[in-house]
């Protein structure tokens, strides 16, 4: 099975937000980056499916040159090769552009299965996966917690299909069946992540990263007018002081003001 995993590089969780002078995007030069967490689960799921059904795992990313960092990491974890749609504008692109950029490089590969994380930890549109499915003309399902490839009995002449467990809200789930090729967006927690071994890191250096230029003529579907620290919806009483004093004050307030204890 030929499996693609789309990954994104996002600022780390510890990153303290800094906004550019125009107030429309972050100061990219100040950020440190890591692999988008839901994408790490998608990659792990792809590696497990390859172990079970054999085949190839190809990492696909759209972003500026810095994205090589997470591509190398994915190759070190076990992906076979990578495709990098490279363009500076992709660092802050919306989902419509990102999905079109990925589709331009992925169509001819004719993947059997495409996995993405359910959303990114930066812009968080939760759109790229589904838009990519539509652009690749594949059926899709989202927020997936289990993937089964249903192999037909040998000689039946039928193709393999998918049966996937989709998460609904409030603790509900649903099984969905669909033909291959297909695209799935993967929920965090679907599996236990593996980390790169030294051997994997060494092997990754020799693996192919095919660079593809960003196609021209892609129009944005939205524009960020202003990026700012969020305004507080509540007046938060901040309690300061050493731990013992702060604890005493908090307990007093919870008893006397809030009457919550």
């Amino acid at each position, binding site marked *: 099975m030929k499996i693609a995993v789309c990954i994104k590089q996002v600022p780390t*969780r510890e990153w303290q*937000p800094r*906004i550019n002078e125009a107030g429309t995007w*972050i100061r990219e030069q100040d950020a440190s980056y890591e692999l988008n967490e839901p994408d790490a689960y998608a990659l792990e799921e792809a590696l497990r499916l390859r172990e079970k059904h054999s085949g190839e795992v190809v990492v696909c990313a759209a972003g500026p040159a810095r994205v090589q960092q997470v591509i190398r990491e994915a190759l070190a974890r076990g992906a076979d090769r990578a495709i990098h749609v490279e363009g500076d504008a992709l660092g802050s692109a919306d*989902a*419509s552009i990102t999905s079109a950029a990925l589709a331009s490089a992925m169509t001819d590969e004719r993947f059997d299965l495409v996995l993405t994380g359910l959303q990114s*930890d930066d*812009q*968080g*549109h*939760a*759109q*790229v*996966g*589904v*838009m990519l*499915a*539509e652009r690749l003309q594949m*059926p899709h*399902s*989202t*927020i997936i917690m289990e993937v089964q490839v249903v192999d037909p009995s040998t000689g039946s002449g039928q193709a393999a299909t998918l049966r996937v467990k989709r*998460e*609904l809200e*409030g*603790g*509900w*789930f*649903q099984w*969905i*069946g*669909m033909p291959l090729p297909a695209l799935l967006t993967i929920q*965090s*927690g679907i599996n236990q992540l593996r980390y790169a071994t030294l051997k994997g890191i060494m092997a990754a250096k020799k693996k192919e990263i095919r660079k593809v230029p960003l196609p021209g003529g892609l129009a944005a*579907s*939205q524009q*960020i*007018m202003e*990026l*700012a*620290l*969020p*305004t*507080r*919806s*509540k007046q*938060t*009483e*901040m*309690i*300061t002081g050493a*731990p*013992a004093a702060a*604890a005493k004050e*908090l*307990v007093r307030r*919870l008893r006397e003001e*809030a009457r*919550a*204890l």
Partner: protein
Amino acid sequence: MILVVAEQRDGTLNRATLETIAAAQKLAGDAPVKAAVLGQSAGAVAQDLATAVSEVLLVENPALGTYTPDAFTVAVQQIVAAVKPVYVLLPHTYQTRDFAPMVAVRVGASLITDVVGINGTGSSATFVRPMFQGKLSAEVRPQGEGPRCVTIQIGAFRADAVKRGTAAPVNPLAVEIDPSTIRQKAEAPFKEAKQAVDLGQAERIVAVGRGIKSQENIAIAEKLAGAMSAEIAASRPICDNGWLPMDRQIGSSGQTVAPKLYVALGISGAIQHLVGMKGARTIVAINKDADAPIFEVADYGIVGDLFDIVPALVSELEKS
């Protein structure tokens, strides 16, 4: 005209639809707001919405009885072609997330998701949405000529703020869906195991997030829960790691709670968590990051190391 795509399952309206109508009324100014109800037999839901909008479009088709993204996309595509809305508003549910991006590509629409605020009315409006896990807030303007799709975050607008009037007409709108073009086969929804804990009944909740760092440290939070007569709960990553069972999870994929007291320990406050707990009467946040979004909804906040503060709280509570 603004079109709201209602969400219902088996004849029960998803309450987030009313919140979306409230958002649509704010965005509309004087322009009309219509609602489309999609399903197999959804007439009762359509009647429910009739006093909140100027027209209800009842879109019934056997292919819409069980939700699939393929069938819903074809249906919404045809509704948009028939009524030509300036905006299409949808509640930001898992179901919307599953098909709205497909609609946007099909009809050449812009799509702004997870909206928590609207500035202005009509075609010059801008939309506020969280970015970077809620650390930043973006004001966004749709681009392009096509219709503008917007999804409204749960809890961002109030269902009881919906302006109601006399009952509007409920008009059927026929859509054609070729069943052979629906690629997904959906089975009936189910619950994993019976929920052992109903956190919705808890008076007080102590919830832990990534800041707790390891499974062994959960005991520190459990001690505080004991001292407060509270239930222990967690954000999603803690349950993903198996440090607490899934039925202790608060947030969009877990339980929604509104206790008297909610103490968030080392929880940054991503929107998926906030939607599950921001209805709590009193919220306490303890986090080492002063910029953590959890402080936006907290009544009381302490910036500091939870491993110092929580034991101090326990000994303070045990004093009296």
